[in-house]
């Protein structure tokens, strides 16, 4: 059973477009983390959000934690080929559970 559902599973866009990917759960988490993973490498932590309704910005990436702390979104503005990768969310409570990821391809 996947506690964290990520959508879409795959996304292919052109350079310069905006996009949003989602991480949804029926469970409440004390915090939620987003990672980016490139082929042949381990996931790299991008951000941790802890407060319901929290918004964090990391250059062109905007992360939002839902008010009820059950869901999160990642918005990328003006995507670049360097944003290509697998984006994983992970919900943290007593343990840590990962979603299956959104595989993003940004074409030049």
């Amino acid at each position, binding site marked *: 059973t*996947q506690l*964290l559902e990520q959508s879409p599973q795959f996304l292919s866009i052109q350079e310069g477009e905006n996009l949003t990917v989602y991480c949804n759960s029926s469970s409440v988490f*004390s*915090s939620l*983390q987003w*990672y980016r993973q490139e082929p*042949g*490498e*381990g*996931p*790299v*932590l991008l951000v*941790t959000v*802890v407060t319901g309704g929290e918004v964090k910005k990391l250059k062109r990436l905007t992360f939002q934690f839902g008010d009820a702390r059950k869901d999160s979104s990642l918005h990328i503005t003006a995507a670049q080929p360097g944003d290509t990768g697998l984006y*994983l969310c*992970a919900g*943290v409570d007593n*343990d*840590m559970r*990962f*979603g*299956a*990821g959104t595989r993003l391809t940004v074409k030049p």
Partner: protein
Amino acid sequence: DAGITQSPRHKVTETGTPVTLRCHQTENHRYMYWYRQDPGHGLRLIHYSYGVKDTDKGEVSDGYSVSRSKTEDFLLTLESATSSQTSVYFCAISKPWLAGRYEQFFGPGTRLTVL
């Protein structure tokens, strides 16, 4: 960079053979983890350790054992490898972040193929 290395990076083995994967960290973190990553499943926790000789099972521990005789090394052993254990294996450590909160950092992974 959390100073995590994994060895080997790639391994091909045959069904029924024992396999040991090694995770080494240089920053003396207490918590270490082993995950496997498979398409459609994300990362799933196999075992974790909260100190030398202190380990516990994760979500998918059947067929795997671990050992931690030194703070810096966490070993994952497949006693008798099966084809269903073909996967990419990641080691991770936890670093304290805010009070009572931790963030995980991952090694580069080991791709294991069981024929």
